[in-house]
């Protein structure tokens, strides 16, 4: 079945630096999504990249997808203390029904002021 794995598990940077998180998955996908979770809060959808896309931007976020390597990366540029959160990649398995996403364990990002 599908699995997502983020790397690194934890990342600690200074404000203004860029943060890069990686995600690998096992089986072919239609799209890959990234979510953020602030401490004690729910998951918030950040961005979705389709399998026929290689790169997508949204504000300070840049997502890449390499389907040949079954991997994706999330880049946050010019990070801020408010970006401190856990970041998860999520995807569907082949044959998954709507809303049944497979999440990784997440990358805990800490941005120091």
């Amino acid at each position, binding site marked *: 079945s599908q699995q997502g794995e983020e790397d690194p598990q934890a990342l600690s940077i200074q404000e203004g630096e860029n943060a890069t998180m990686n995600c690998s998955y096992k089986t072919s996908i239609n799209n890959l999504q990234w979510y953020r979770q602030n401490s004690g809060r729910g998951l918030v959808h950040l961005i979705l990249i389709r399998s026929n896309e290689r790169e997508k931007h949204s504000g300070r976020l840049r997502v890449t997808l390499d389907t040949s390597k079954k991997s994706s990366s999330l880049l946050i540029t010019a990070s801020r203390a408010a970006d401190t959160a856990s970041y998860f990649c999520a995807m569907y398995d082949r044959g998954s*029904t709507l809303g*049944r996403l497979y999440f990784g364990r997440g990358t805990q990002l800490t941005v120091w002021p």
Partner: protein
Amino acid sequence: EPEVTQTPSHQVTQMGQEVILRCVPISNHLYFYWYRQILGQKVEFLVSFYNNEISEKSEIFDDQFSVERPDGSNFTLKIRSTKLEDSAMYFCASIGTATFYATNEKLFFGSGTQLSVL
């Protein structure tokens, strides 16, 4: 932006007790979900619900679990006899109108209910 709301935010219960976790999905959404996250582990799918019935459930969602949409707004998860290993953060989520097998949709999550079974 519309929100999925969950109550309570924290629930402490004794092993063997029944708990009901409550959710109010976004009003015009049609597909509803429960996920859970055990501390330090992955967010896991439990169940999906559409048109007043379960669409899909995972192997975690055994006979101790049930879901219900008792009225036009609430969506509940009941755990009949809680076990220590049910301790987790439980998330409700919903999706707006879409073709059921179209997967280019994002989920809207609530803030979760932290369930602690003692």
